[in-house]
């Protein structure tokens, strides 16, 4: 008993950022009693929480395992956490006006974002199937509620419901797969699974296969791989737009983290057994995501399908499975967090009051009225399509390079051709802004927080695209390679 307590006490420093986040989230939640309509104050508190969590994050010792090996702090988890914090910060900034205008109760809104981020933090570091499951649920339940936040419309609760039902299915698959793994090996710890699965797999291959498939299906739901992606377009369209932006990056980053932990960490020994299946899913995801995006008229839906396609590209990093490929995947996530949040920021700014700007058609002639904002949107679209010199190009370049280095020629060829297709739908927005006749009359002012988000994302998109070395070195240093 004493041993357990001392172990927990010594490990708790590993959890410092998560503790900060949960305390901060609770303070913001109770803030509703004292400052009911003070959106700015509560947003400020949330940002403060994120900042303290960031400081705490860098105080946590790297490469340590705590809580009897259930929890792990390494460079990989640190990078994923930085990405989720960063996205959380941008989304909170983007949400302020949105929440204010729609008269949401801001306390719950911001605290749910913080709770979900704490779930993502736990996901990133979890080193055990059960820890993963619990943290996954903490993240997912918060996001289900956020998706349904437009409760006075019909579309938002429907989206939340769909997301919730499919999310619950995914959880069930996960726990089923995990229980099979436990039955086979007698452990749920990632590192022990890695040693034991190859030993039991040959004899009990059917069960091992079922277990792997169940977990693959469940994580496929989480990062929206084809054919488990159906919830994504509806949930993305129905959710409040800042939450859509949030969902497109942060939960995906965390889910990719556990994907890598489980498939490289636990199932790495039987890599060649699951690789074809994941390769097939990735292939279909890239094709389906891109071709379905072409048909969309609603920009949120278009970005939803495009994010499915991006998940397809990123899964190349898991299939390749080498340290370079994982680094490349993280770089891609960073790139995606800049360009996708940036694009969503423009959508949010445009569609804030009246929903005008949710359709691609609404962008008709915008370049004539708002040349700067249009140019910024153009750069985000170029970056999403992977045209240099943008961060999106660099992300693709590095990710595809790593995949080629692992011999995935066919998948990379599909990926590059699919990204050429993606240009078509990203450039529909550009076409509307620049090439269509002037019809745009909406005037709007950017608030300071919106300006900050646009500035941060565009500078990141361009600067890193032209000079990626600092980001590159940062990832390299943290990753320890």
């Amino acid at each position: 008993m004493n041993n357990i307590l001392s172990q927990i006490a010594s490990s708790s420093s590993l959890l410092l950022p998560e503790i900060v986040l949960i305390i901060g989230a609770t303070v913001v939640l109770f803030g509703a009693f004292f400052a009911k309509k003070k959106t700015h104050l509560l947003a400020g508190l949330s940002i403060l929480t994120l900042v303290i969590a960031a400081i705490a994050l860098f105080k946590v010792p790297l490469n340590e395992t705590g809580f009897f090996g259930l929890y792990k702090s390494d460079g990989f988890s640190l990078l994923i956490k930085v990405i989720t914090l960063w996205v959380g910060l941008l989304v909170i900034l983007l949400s302020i006006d949105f929440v204010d205008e729609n008269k949401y109760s801001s306390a719950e809104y911001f605290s749910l974002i913080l709770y979900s981020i704490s779930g993502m933090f736990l996901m990133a570091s979890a080193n055990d199937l059960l820890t993963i499951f619990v943290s996954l649920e903490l993240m997912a339940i918060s996001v289900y509620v956020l998706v349904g936040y437009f409760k006075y419309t019909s579309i938002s609760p429907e989206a939340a419901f769909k997301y919730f039902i499919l999310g619950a299915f995914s959880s069930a698959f996960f726990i089923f797969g995990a229980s099979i793994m436990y039955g086979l090996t007698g452990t749920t710890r990632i590192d022990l699974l890695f040693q034991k699965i190859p030993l039991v797999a040959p004899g009990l291959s059917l069960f091992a296969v079922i277990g792997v498939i169940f977990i693959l299906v469940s994580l496929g739901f989480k990062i929206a791989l084809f054919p488990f992606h159906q919830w994504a377009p509806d949930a993305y369209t129905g959710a409040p737009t800042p939450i859509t932006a949030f969902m497109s990056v942060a939960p995906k980053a965390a889910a990719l983290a556990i994907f890598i932990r489980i498939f490289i960490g636990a199932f790495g020994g039987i890599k060649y057994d699951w690789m074809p299946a994941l390769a097939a899913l990735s292939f279909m995801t890239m094709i389906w995501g891109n071709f379905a995006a072409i048909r969309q008229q609603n920009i949120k839906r278009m970005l939803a399908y495009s994010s499915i396609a991006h998940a397809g590209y990123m899964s190349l990093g898991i299939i390749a499975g080498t340290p370079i490929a994982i680094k490349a995947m993280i770089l891609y996530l960073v790139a995606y967090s800049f360009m996708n949040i940036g694009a969503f920021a423009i959508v949010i700014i445009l569609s804030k009051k009246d929903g005008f700007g949710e359709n691609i058609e609404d962008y008709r002639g915008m370049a004539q009225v708002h040349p700067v904002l249009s140019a910024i949107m153009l750069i985000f679209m170029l970056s999403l399509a992977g045209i240099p010199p943008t961060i999106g190009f660099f992300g693709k370049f590095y990710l595809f390079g790593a995949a080629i280095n692992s011999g995935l020629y066919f998948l990379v060829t599909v990926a590059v051709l699919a990204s050429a297709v993606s240009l078509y739908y990203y450039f529909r927005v550009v076409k509307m802004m620049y090439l269509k006749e002037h019809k745009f009359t909406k005037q709007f002012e950017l608030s300071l927080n919106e300006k900050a988000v646009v500035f941060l994302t565009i500078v990141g998109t361009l600067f890193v695209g032209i000079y990626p070395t600092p980001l590159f070195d940062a990832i390299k240093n943290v990753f320890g390679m």
Partner: protein
Amino acid sequence: MSNVNNVLGFPILTIVTFLPTIGAILIALFLNKENTKAIKYSAFFIAVVDFILSLPLWFYYDPTTWKMQFEESVSWIPSLGIRYAVGIDGISLVLVLLTTLLGFIAIWSSFEAIKHREKEYYVLLLLLQTGMLGVFIAEDFFLFYVFWEVMLVPMYFLIGVWGGPRKLYAAIKFFLYTLAGSVLMLVAILALYFYNHKVNGVWTFDIQSYHQLASYIAAHTSKTWQYLLAIAFFLGFAIKVPMFPFHTWLPDAHVEAPTAGSVILAGVLLKMGTYGFLRFLLPIFPDATKALLPYFVFLAIVGIIYGALVALIQKDMKKLVAYSSVSHLGMCMLGLFALNPNGINGSIIQMINHGISTGALFLIVGIVYERKHTRLIKEYGGLSKIMPVYATVFMIMTLSSIGLPGLNGFVGEFTILAGAFQAKPIWAIVATSGIVLGAAYMLWLYQRVMFNEVSEENLELHKKGVLKDLTPREVAYFMPLILLAFWIGLYPKPLFRALEAPVNHLVEQVEPGFFSREQVKFDLNKAKKEIEKEAEEGHHE
């Protein structure tokens, strides 16, 4: 880290390449969009200065070596071994000069033609110029690819905003088509990058070191791997050229683009494809190229004849010139695939010629279009009577395009055919039919537009001053092209001299031992003596 290595002692290539971008940024930031005159003249001024700055390259170029000159190199992304490294040899040199020349002519020719969103238009033209120049000077594969892609964006807008009725379709088709080719090329570049690391243990995108790897690749990798990579490069470049059957984006893009866009497209952009073949496919994959050569040559020859035949039946002047481009570029490709000095020299000279003649022909079509807003051939006729100066320029360019001796086209086509004949006589024989067809469609076009009676309507338009002869500005921007056409036609020696060393080096890379082989030479004196001897023997009998 930073290293400038050239006779001039300053980074001339970087300045020439980025001056247009700096100009574009200044115009975008400091000129009001209402002030179109200032915008036009600043853009023109920048382009002219850029052209003048590029001239020292020609004069200080050392034709005795194939090595890269005017080199500059700075580390860019050290962890991946990516450098900002530029330099030129004779092949790049002529293409850089062509780009800067056509750059200012394109801007000059747009003064009257572009009537809306002028600021964006000139900014984009200048940005485009940086992209194109960068492609020709890059010595680092990554850098090359960045320029190659960056250039697509301004062109997309040039076609999409200022183009004809089907501009949106043409713009996206151009973009998607060429992007699809270039991303495949990217895969091949990455594969080479990792392969090079495996062999040499160095992370680098340096093009020269890939050239040095060529024989190792040929000896140590599987045929399939070589073929796949060669085909990926081939597709990237063949779409850009464009070779048959990847040419379908070209007529759309040409017809819809504004005049200056077409000039740049035909004059420079297509050359990026042929340049890619010369710089990358041939030297890095010589074996795979030679193995696939019959297919490549087949496509080139089909392109020559198909392009000419389709040009023959066009009703729209611009479409006719566009299809003639397919034919001419097929000729360039044929010369290239002859893989001997004649063929490759001819091919490069023909690239320049095509830039001059077809660029000029697009300007010529643009001029009547600006005046009458139609490009249909049947709407014209007898123009030589009311626009004599125009008729003269048109005549010179027609003759240059069909390869009349004394003009540039002849030199190029003759050298290509000589090279093709040397490689395989049947290639030259078939390709010659393309030249005959070329003469047919161009002369027929000239006849229909220039001769016969002037229609009442056109006469009326002429009297109103709408269908007027060339203005001094128009004559002025044709002059450099006409002078060049004659210069290359009459005295191509400097051009051949500039190309000699790099082309010979290239041939040696592709066909090692080519120059040491016994050359069959025709000795006139020896032949005479033999004939006399035979004749004497005959007398004695």
